[in-house]
């Protein structure tokens, strides 16, 4: 039987005030296996730790139990103590007789009895502790950034500037993302593309950045420092190497369709670059609409292309890369406005979304920045801006606030008033939220200097009356219903997770919330990490954000990656699952329950009754395994066990506890 030393802490009066530590010591002394018991005023103190090390040597202890506070507090401390004494740190067990005992009980008798039980269970477990060795894994110092919006661009640039290789993957034909669609940015009203496009170009030029646009992540395997990712580069229909981006093909292409980039308020061709400043400035062929792909005739673009870069028969290419870290910056979608039937979006052409409005006022947009309403191209003399369409609505939308809508709507109203001097701008709001540098001032200016009219109330109905739209709401400040006739209505949709966010999360093996936003590891202290080591978050994929916050988070994520890459090796937590191959039947039911895809089949060869047999068993990737133990329960024959929390240990805790409280076996 292993020689156990037990160290009982008074924690001043924190424990000793309620628990009769002396009595506990007497009883513990009589436990099988316990060869040394000691009381300390403060075990975590220098002298306290010193006496542990002393006792380990003098009484050649093989296991140590420290009965004091929560292991969540001092387990690392005492593990270091054991290590310092030349003992395997995992030979420590802690008995939490403070948080779980002295602090929550008042009766000295009861508390003392319970404290003894807690120590007894710890001893039972300690007797079955094993020496554990942390593993070491190498790090591939190359990062994958998913999403080429401002978040992805920023993260990619920062990591690249830190001197590490970056692969930037963007689903669309160009990087730039939402920000590229915007006209100006609040509160400074500086031009969005003026600050974004340079960064886009940097990305393309940066020696450390490999850019894959019009590409999607297919598969992720491996673990921190060693991810194997598979990327599908969709067929562009254009040889990027040859294409000069002259744009002739686009001018000549006979097919016109709604432009995704212009959110339906503008048109594009079947071969196109989403917008003039696109990076890379190489067009793609949209197979669904391309006349040649549909009818087998046309090929005009091919004819006009002097670089001979058109490749109708081009196929998707699969790219495999090994990376050490992943930054997820996949952004957001907009709430489906048709959910609000009473607002008539999709029914009345002059009810549009904020993003459509961005395109309308954008100098490079379909109307060259002239505000004209879709129905008759007339300049709207009055515009109503409706906030919180979807946001903060448990009934029809999402409960959260989308954080950016107030400010950009303020911006829109201001911009409208600038452009249409005699126009009237109404903003229907629940609250105007301006938590940001110079936000409140910007808002005030809009009403004081630009005469934007704010009406506090969520519209209940928008309906057409002749050429006008009537917005009906309750003015909750006046406490009476108001109806405002306007020429155009702009709805501010909630920011919602990308439609395929959940799928993405599963591919990556990270958790996501009820809405589909990816979960950070800790809302306050680990805001850019995920629970899967080596995967970080940036931007709106984690929750609604405006541009400054997004850029800040992207920088933070990049810093984390740089910190990770600053080491050459990682040590892994040794409290992980392990397989007893002799027992393992190879059923692999442990595999589906592993949240980290850490279990795979492995073929082993063994001699049975003189003949060689090969069979499959489960094998745990210690780099991936986080030690949750789900697999151990899925394993019926107990081949799968969890170091530090073995079946043996848990059963011993149960048995020894109850053997004393509820003697069995007639003893």
């Amino acid at each position, binding site marked *: 039987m292993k020689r156990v030393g037990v160290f009982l802490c008074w924690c001043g009066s924190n424990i000793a005030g309620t628990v009769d530590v002396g009595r506990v010591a007497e009883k513990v002394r009589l436990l099988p296996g316990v060869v040394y018991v000691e009381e300390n005023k403060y075990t975590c103190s220098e002298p306290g730790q010193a006496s542990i090390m002393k006792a380990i040597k003098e009484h050649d202890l093989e296991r140590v139990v420290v009965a004091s506070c*929560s*292991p*969540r507090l001092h387990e690392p401390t005492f593990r270091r103590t054991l290590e310092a004494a030349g003992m395997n740190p995992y030979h420590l067990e802690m008995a*939490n007789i*403070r*948080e*779980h*005992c002295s*602090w*929550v*009980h*008042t*009766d000295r008798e*009861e*508390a003392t*009895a*319970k404290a003894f*039980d*807690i120590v007894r*269970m710890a001893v039972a477990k300690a007797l079955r502790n094993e020496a554990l060795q942390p593993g070491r894994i190498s790090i591939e110092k190359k990062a994958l950034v998913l999403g080429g919006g401002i978040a992805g661009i920023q993260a990619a640039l920062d990591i690249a500037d830190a001197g590490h290789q970056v692969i930037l993957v963007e689903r669309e034909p160009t990087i730039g993302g939402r920000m590229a669609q915007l006209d100006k940015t609040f509160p400074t009203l500086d031009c969005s593309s003026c600050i974004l496009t340079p960064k886009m170009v940097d990305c393309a030029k940066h020696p450390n950045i490999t850019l894959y646009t019009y590409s999607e992540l297919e598969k992720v395997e491996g673990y921190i420092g060693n991810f194997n990712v598979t990327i599908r580069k969709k067929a562009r229909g254009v040889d990027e190497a040859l294409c000069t981006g002259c744009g002739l093909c686009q001018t000549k292409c006979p097919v016109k369709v709604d432009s995704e980039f212009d959110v339906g308020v503008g048109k594009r061709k079947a071969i196109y670059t989403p917008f003039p400043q696109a990076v890379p400035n190489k067009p793609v062929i949209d197979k669904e609409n391309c006349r040649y792909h549909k009818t087998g005739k046309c090929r005009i673009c091919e004819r006009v292309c002097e670089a001979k870069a058109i490749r109708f028969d081009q196929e998707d290419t699969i790219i495999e890369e090994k990376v050490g870290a992943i930054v997820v910056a996949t952004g957001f979608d907009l709430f489906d406005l048709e959910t609000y039937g009473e607002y008539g979006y999709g029914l009345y052409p002059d009810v549009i979304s904020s993003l459509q409005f961005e395109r309308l006022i954008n100098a490079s947009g379909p109307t060259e920045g002239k505000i004209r309403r879709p129905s008759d191209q007339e300049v709207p003399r009055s515009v109503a801006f409706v906030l919180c369409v979807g946001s903060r609505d448990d009934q029809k939308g999402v409960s959260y606030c989308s954080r950016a809508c107030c400010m950009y709507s303020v911006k829109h109203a201001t911009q409208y008033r600038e452009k249409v001097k005699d126009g009237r701008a109404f903003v229907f709001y629940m609250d105007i939220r301006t938590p940001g540098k110079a936000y409140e001032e910007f808002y005030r200016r809009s009403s004081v200097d630009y005469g934007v009219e704010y009406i506090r109330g969520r519209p209940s109905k928008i309906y057409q009356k002749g050429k006008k739209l009537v917005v009906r709401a309750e003015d909750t400040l006046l406490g009476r219903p108001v109806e405002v006739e306007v020429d155009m209505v702009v709805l501010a949709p909630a920011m919602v997770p990308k439609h395929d966010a959940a799928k993405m999360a599963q591919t990556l*093996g*990270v*958790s996501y*919330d*009820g809405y589909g936003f990816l*979960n950070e590891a800790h809302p306050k202290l680990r805001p850019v990490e995920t*629970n*899967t080591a080596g995967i970080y978050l940036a931007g709106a994929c984690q929750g609604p954000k405006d541009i400054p916050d997004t850029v800040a988070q992207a920088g933070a994520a990049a810093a984390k990656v740089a910190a990770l890459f600053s080491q050459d090796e990682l040590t892994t937590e040794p*409290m992980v699952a392990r397989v007893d191959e002799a027992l393992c039947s190879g059923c692999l039911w442990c595999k589906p*329950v592993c*949240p*980290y895809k850490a279990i795979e089949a492995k073929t082993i060869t063994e001699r049975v009754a003189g003949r060689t047999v090969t069979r499959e068993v489960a094998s745990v990737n210690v780099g991936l395994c*986080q*030690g*949750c*133990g*789900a697999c*151990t*329960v*899925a394993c019926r024959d107990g081949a799968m066990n*969890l170091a530090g*929390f073995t*079946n043996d240990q*848990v*059963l011993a*805790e*149960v*048995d020894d*506890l*109850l*053997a004393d*409280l*509820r*003697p*069995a*076996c*007639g*003893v």
Partner: protein
Amino acid sequence: MQPRKSGGFENMAESASRPEEARPAETRPAEEPGAGWEPVIVGFLCNWCSYAGADSAGTARMVHPPNVRVIRVPCSGRVNPRFILRAFQRGADGVLVSGCHPGDCHYSTGNYYARRRLVLLKRYLEYLGIDPRRFRTHWVSASEGQKFADIVREMTAEIKALGPGPKAKLGELV
């Protein structure tokens, strides 16, 4: 139908050698309800939420009954149903399993698997004749010290009222 609390009919003869009175456990005063009898509740708490929740109950000095003995596990998904029956078999009067709220699992999905298993187990134990009030399962986050304290209080009171656990009916292991 069987006259004595004992194993299968095979060892009836044997139990002759140890008449009831001579058998401890069953007649120990500590096992009789009412006077001085205190329930023993084995609590399996996940390290990241519920164990921390119990800790915060401590840090906030939320006084609650001393009847729960905590076994720390990394995740509610680590709790093997066999552990729970084992506890009852060895004399626990109640068993509590608590983990992170669904969706908040430190290991992202561990508690979802646990939930399936435990909901099934809960019904099954009742089916086997173990009072469902003796086996409770909860979600307690690291911040829910109060909730933890309340659960312990409720559960202790409830089981006090119920009296000694299944072992009283099951009898000795040998």
